[in-house]
């Protein structure tokens, strides 16, 4: 019966409905991707009438470029740390705001506002905040702690600061998702757990956390994509420095392609990034399928 109906409505031809969007997306994106492949075999600055074909030598250069590997390690470290911290905080915030606390809306807004503000707008604020002229330094001075806030100019601390900024920016996202997931948990199940004598914290980690598995996977996907896309904050706060300590693939592609006019080389890094992004998508798709079955 149902099949029959589906068949009837499927007689209407849908091609004209999807074609405009399809041509638009495929036209722009596939054009860019194939053109990137083409550019990646050239030694070219993007303007010169002379282009030199260099085959795969841009790629061999990429894989022996220490800055590229630095960018890859930074991306991995950045993903793991921000994912863990952000999810922990978001989860705890969601649980606390599900109890009857005072001023819940105010807290919710404060956590969520960073997710909607443009990183480009906030970048000058962070440059000041983490400089000796900033608010943190003032606070440390009040307590005579003798700490100098110059972390952005030190290569061993700059990445940590960028990760803190990312956590500040995206906790609201994980908070909102955990909050929504927790609203859907069966209340009777929680009651039963309480009757069994389990305390709030045990219930939270033994009953609630496993129920948020889907949310964790979604956030992992957003985290991986986000880490691969990272550009605005490192570009604007540290310009990838000092000495490439906060270099990411995005900032390195920009540095090579636009700043130094090595367009072919930038295209080769872009191709590697593309492969990584597709691998990330496939990996998550698999995790998701494993979850369903």
């Amino acid at each position, binding site marked *: 019966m149902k099949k029959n109906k589906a068949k009837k409505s499927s007689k209407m031809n849908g091609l*004209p409905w999807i074609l405009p969007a399809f041509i638009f*997306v495929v036209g722009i994106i596939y054009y860019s991707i194939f053109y990137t492949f083409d550019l990646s075999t050239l030694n070219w600055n993007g303007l010169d009438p002379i282009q030199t074909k260099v085959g795969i030598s841009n790629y061999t250069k990429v894989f022996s470029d220490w800055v590229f590997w630095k960018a890859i390690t930074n991306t991995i470290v950045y993903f793991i740390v921000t994912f863990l911290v952000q999810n922990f905080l978001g989860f705890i915030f969601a649980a*606390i705001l599900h109890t009857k606390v005072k001023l819940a809306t105010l807290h919710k807004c404060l956590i969520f506002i960073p997710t909607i503000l443009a990183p480009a707008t*906030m970048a*000058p604020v962070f440059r000041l905040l983490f400089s000796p002229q900033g608010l943190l330094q003032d606070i440390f001075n009040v307590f005579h702690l003798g700490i100098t806030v110059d972390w952005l100019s030190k290569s061993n601390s700059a990445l940590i600061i960028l990760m803190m900024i990312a956590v500040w920016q995206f906790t*609201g996202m994980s908070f909102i998702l955990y909050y929504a997931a927790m*609203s859907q948990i069966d209340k009777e199940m929680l009651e039963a757990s309480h009757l069994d004598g389990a305390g709030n914290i045990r219930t939270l980690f033994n009953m609630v956390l496993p129920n948020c598995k889907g949310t964790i996977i979604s956030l992992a996907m957003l985290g991986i994509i986000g880490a691969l896309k990272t*550009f605005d904050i490192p570009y*604007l706060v540290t310009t990838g420095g000092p000495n490439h300590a906060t270099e990411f693939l995005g900032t390195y*592609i920009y540095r090579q392609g636009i700043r130094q006019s090595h367009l072919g080389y930038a295209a080769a890094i872009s191709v590697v990034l593309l492969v990584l992004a597709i691998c990330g998508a496939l990996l998550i798709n698999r995790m998701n399928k494993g979850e369903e079955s």
Partner: protein
Amino acid sequence: MFEVRSLKNKVILQIILLLMTIPYAIPLVQMFLGSLGGTGFSNYKAVWDTGVVPTYFRNSLIITAGVIILVYIFSMTAGFGFAKLHIFGKEVFFWMILIALTLPEVIMLSPLFVTFQKMHMFNTFWAVILPSAALQLPFSILLARNFATGIPDELMEAARIDGANVRSMFWYIILPLTKPIASSIIVLTFINAWNSYLLPLLFLQSPSMQTVTLLPQYFQGEFTNDQTKILAAAVITAIPEIIVYLSMQKNFEKGMSAGALK
């Protein structure tokens, strides 16, 4: 949902929450205090008197509106087509769009840089609108399709028996019933387009065409690193966004969470 009964625990929880939230407020406090450094509120006057702020806002509005219109039209029609209509090789089309779901925009930097230069598209809004919309569409189409799939076939059948053609089904059934997902798509697109930085940085080099995300850089040149004025500009840029969020809080939260659900 979780009950905390004793007063002592309630107070402890409230304090923990406060301590956890304070770090989230610090950058906002820094932004505001920093903008008042030196000459106080006249920093704002100095920023406003340059006369460029409305231009930057106008440009951001035009670009954001352009992206939203394209994404809305294309995602609604394609979502309907993929969910409800017969298309030969539908899965292939869908899969080809979905591949672009996780594409970082920086990948398009080299090819678009060359292409837009050849086509003299630098300093046009299209150079930002077209790639932004194309990058936003795969996910929006996925959302719209998933949502439209949930609309009962019986409804479409009944309309068809009443003599409705595909276009009126789209107009009178799909569009009204997909409003919730449409609002999520619009919110997500709005945030991404308004906050977009890389594409305007690359393609909008004339100050009269630039967007609010490039405002700090403009003032860096204008006030030769007078941080207070740059922060005053940041406050001016942030306030409208915060107001839009506060007045549409529910839509924003729903839209952002649609960003993660498949």
